[in-house]
């Protein structure tokens, strides 16, 4: 479960930045950027508590 959540989290992070890069390159509209960033944000905050925040191992 944690591994799955972690993978989804990393995809969500990618989905947070990639649309802006695509917009800079001229291959995505600004509205699409905003939609993808919102979806990615929701995914990140739903999945990240499942795996992050374990006691630090140093």
């Amino acid at each position, binding site marked *: 479960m944690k591994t799955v959540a972690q993978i989804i989290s990393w995809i*969500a*992070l990618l989905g*947070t*930045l990639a*649309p*802006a*890069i695509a*917009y*800079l390159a*001229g291959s995505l509209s*600004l509205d699409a*950027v*905003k*939609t993808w*960033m*919102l979806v*990615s*944000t929701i995914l*990140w*905050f739903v999945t*990240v*508590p499942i795996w*992050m*925040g374990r006691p*630090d*191992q*140093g």
Partner: protein
Amino acid sequence: MADETTSAPNEPVNEYEREPVPERARLGFKSFIGQYAGEHTAGTELMIGPLFVASGVAAFDLVIGLLIGNLLAVLSWTFLTAPIATKARMTLYFQLEKICGRKLVTLYNLANGVMFCFLAGSMITVSATAVGVWFHFPMPGLNDLYPNSLGWVLAVLAVGTMVAVVAAYGYTFVARIANYAAPWMTLVFFAFGLVGLREFLNATGTTINSAGDFWHLCQTAIWKGGAPLPGQVKFTFWHVMFFSWFCNMAMHVGMSDLSVFRYAKKSWYGLATSSGMFLGHYFAWIAASILYALQLHRDAANTDVLPGPLAYNAAGVAGLICVIIAGWTTANPTIYRAGLAFQAIFPKSSRYKVTLITGLIVAAFGMFPAVAMKLLGFVALYGLILMPMGAVIFVDFYLIPKFGLTPYYAEKSGTSINWAAAIAWFATLGIATWLVQTGRTQIFFVSLPGWFIAAALYLVVSKLYQQKLSPRPATAASLAS
């Protein structure tokens, strides 16, 4: 950063406020990376970046000035704050009490706590601008000092109350939330910059074929230099460098982050602050400044610095969430620090209650946009006021024993006020105020000579002052430290 294992859930935990942090509670490098990245990728970055543009900054001055200034800040944490923190392992307040005595440290704690409250208030102000985008109430302009609508007051109250409640639950919980948000938030700030750049390309009809083209766009359209907006101070390379170095002066040179790095296993963990200085301050300020420059490029009359609308235009609802969370995760540790400061004044009171009350005071401060809109000057003032005590701690730790004098003098002599520290603090502030008020220097630069003045004063006055009192034998607590 607390030892939760010995505490019941939702109860205030032992955070070693009056004892050195034991080995079992010490934390690894990663904890500090996440904390500083989250804390310094903050809502206020969305104020500071635009205020640079409003101050007429030029491209080279911004990009290189920020690079050098933030590097100096990281080095200050690494070579000034963290070495003392990992040897003494005490909170700033407890260490100061041993040096300065109960009465002086009470005054310092009051000043520190109040400054933290203003700073956290500006973070709440920033978060509330995001709420304004949803509810469409009038929001403050660049030169506004007072709240200008009921909606604004209610929004600040709602955000502030939430922040206060969360901050009261303790550092570990706050750090966990900041850790959740930090990686995502950093990328959203990057996205702000990338979207802003594309919009600039569209708005100016520029095509980028080389680094030279890009730099030309930066110099002629984004950070054009020239005169500042009305009411703002002109920022040069030196302003940017000193501002970015001293932006967190109270925390590194001023030693406030002794309370944070006392948990670090090694002093080089001070380098973890680079996550905040570069991923946070450097890129976040640049990204935010691009968004504001774009706003001015489209409508030169629209000088409002409102992070909510800036973020919404660039990244939609995700941008708004970022502004709220960025303000929240930064206000939390700031309120926590203010709570520690006030608790040091009332050591028998519960940290939970003190932090909660502090958070509610912060919410009240947040209603007034004056601090947020004058953030560049306020941040410099905040560093200046607290910096002399950092010099006192540095000298007491390294130089006082070398000169045959007694460190932790107040504790060892039993005095409630160490006049050497008091004179170093007040005289430094007096001299700095005179230098600024008479136009000999600006507030952004005065803290550097101020540190040396405070250090020299503390050493010289200690030499004179300590001869008048006979130190008592060292206590067990002082030996343990």
